[in-house]
């Protein structure tokens, strides 16, 4: 009962078809009130389609979307207490910045004076007060983006939809805006549904993330869940970097799966439900959870040869070739200590992993 109360948006078995193309395939997810929720996925996976369905611009083919417990299928976009920050901003070109921000407040039935006060507050919040009288075309991309945000926040919606609002910004402004958005969400208490295809952005900003591909939700969870315990190969591969290795499960003893890697290398990791003995599955292990040494660190350390060292600022990325096996990537932090674990090309080394770092995956 209390859980029901907390749901801002409840998407239930939603299917959306364009002709005979299925853009959303049985999507179900619950977005809690006051949550910073992110839809993350590659281009064309249906993020915008889902957002547009929530906003009311698309009629779903099947399923139901509830807003605070009520089915909103018959509610047109202008009757939904939901505002959108559009991917292309969609600012009204013939109105000043102030008028743009006043628009939604006025259309909600407030009079001009109220709208003007409210718009003034919003302009202050996004630090654009001095541009109130300008037209959108006289602002930079980043400023327009902030106007779009202010315009969507001004009518005090219950849910704010943001469709890749930062994609046009340079890295520095983007980072700053990420923090600003996050702070704004916390201050206003409005539920944010944020769309991005940038996994780093998703990880830093979100309370929870839904990873999507091909019109399906692949995994839903907090940033840490998704990064550390991906449910399937797609999620492991899409979020961050990982070593994906084809393996066979030899035997399962006491909840530990003993696996065969090519070339006689052996690994043990935690058992995963539904993966039985003899099946060919994938194993995922993050590069930063592997390390190299000249002597075997443990029984399961695998012999390999360094074939590449790539300097990437904070880390060094080493690529090694397992003897008679696949290649693996190892990330070593660039510190005094870490440098001792980076070896010249051609060095014979042993690859070891932190306990619990390896994960068996379906698919």
């Amino acid at each position, binding site marked *: 009962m209390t859980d029901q109360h907390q749901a801002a948006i409840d998407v239930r078995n939603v299917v959306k078809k364009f002709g005979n193309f299925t853009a959303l395939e049985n999507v179900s997810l619950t977005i809690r009130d006051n949550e910073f929720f992110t839809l993350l996925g590659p281009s064309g996976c249906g993020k915008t389609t889902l957002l547009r369905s929530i906003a009311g611009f698309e009629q779903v083919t099947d399923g139901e979307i509830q807003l605070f417990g009520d089915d909103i299928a018959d509610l047109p*976009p*202008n009757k939904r207490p939901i505002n959108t920050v559009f991917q292309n901003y*969609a600012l*009204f070109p*013939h109105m000043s910045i102030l008028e743009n921000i006043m*628009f*939604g407040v006025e*259309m909600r039935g407030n009079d001009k004076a109220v709208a003007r006060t409210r718009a003034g507050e919003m302009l202050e919040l996004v630090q654009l007060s001095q541009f109130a009288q300008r037209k959108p075309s006289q602002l930079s991309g980043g400023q327009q983006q902030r106007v779009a945000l202010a315009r969507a926040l001004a009518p005090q919606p219950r849910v704010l939809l943001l469709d890749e609002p930062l994609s046009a910004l340079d890295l520095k402004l983007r980072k700053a805006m990420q923090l600003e958005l996050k702070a704004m969400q916390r201050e206003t208490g409005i539920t944010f549904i944020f769309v991005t295809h940038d996994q780093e952005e998703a990880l830093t900003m979100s309370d929870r993330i839904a990873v999507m591909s091909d019109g399906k939700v692949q995994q839903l969870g907090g940033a840490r869940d998704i990064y550390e315990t991906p449910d399937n190969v797609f999620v492991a591969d899409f979020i961050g970097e990982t070593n994906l290795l084809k393996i066979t499960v030899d035997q399962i003893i006491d909840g530990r799966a003993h696996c065969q890697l090519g070339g006689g290398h052996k690994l043990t990791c935690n058992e995963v439900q539904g993966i039985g003995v003899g099946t060919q599955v994938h194993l995922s292990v993050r590069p930063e959870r592997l390390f190299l040494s000249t002597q075997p660190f443990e029984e399961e350390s695998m012999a390999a040869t360094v074939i590449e060292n790539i300097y990437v600022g904070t880390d060094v990325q080493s690529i090694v070739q397992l003897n008679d096996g696949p290649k693996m990537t190892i990330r070593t932090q660039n510190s005094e200590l870490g440098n001792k674990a980076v070896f010249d090309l051609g060095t014979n080394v042993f690859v070891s992993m932190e306990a619990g770092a390896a994960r068996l995956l379906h698919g």
Partner: protein
Amino acid sequence: MAGANIKSGIATDTYAKERYWLLLPSWAVLLIFIVVPVAIMMVYSFLTKEFRGGVIWEFSMAAYDQFFFDRGLFGDEPAKIEWTYLNIYWRSIWQAGLATIFSLAIGFPTAYFIATRDAKVRPIWVFLITIPYWVNLLIRTVSMKFLLRDNGPLNSFLQMLEVIEEPLHIINTNLAVQLGLFYSYLPFMVLPIYAAIERYNFSLSEAAADLYASKWQTLRYVILPTVKPGVIAGCILVFVPSMGAFLAPDLLGGAKNFMIGSLIEEQFKGNAGNWPFGAAASMILLTMVLIILMVFSRQQSKAQEA
């Protein structure tokens, strides 16, 4: 300082030397087809009329005097205002204005409809709109007269459906003139508005709906202001030729619904004409249209600043 000046001048001065030569064809066209004819007309309006049409090359204000003042049958009474022609002009203005409003009311939804079709079928719709205009205007207007007659197809059809018992008298009324003008100039309304709506970014309508605007509010506050240049162009393109139209008023409106175009046309027809008077009437029409357009654009730019 000098450097800054040079820099800011670059964009416009690239073709500084060639500019006048490059613009020559445009200037020539404007000169030959607009300035010269208007000048000829102006000169003729100040000449003396010859009784069998044509002019005597002698300066005279008689044409303008005839237009504005009534000096009795023999021209010896004290001057009173002549209302005959002013009334015709007044009627022309409101007929043209009404036709413009009418065309806008039908033309805007039509243009909107076409612009919101699939990009592949839009040219077909535009083509359909223009098909009737492949036929000469005179023939179309005569056909319209035939259609609207008391015993014409429209009345027969309505009587057959038993919508009406007695035939509707449409011909020789203002309504007939309106229908004629509307039909003559509708594409001039539809096409510029269509061009404007086609360029309109429909995500702005979604943004408006997202911000709680109803369909009408979206039309009123977002779509109309953005496509306004197209609407203004359409209104001018319908209003101006409607003012000077003579086929529709002549053929459909009859003698009672005389408009400026017919008045001017009469002056140049056969032996009864009066060339200087026709030229003067044209000059007055031209001046009036210019004044109306200027007032209009004044208000536009004022509204823009506000």
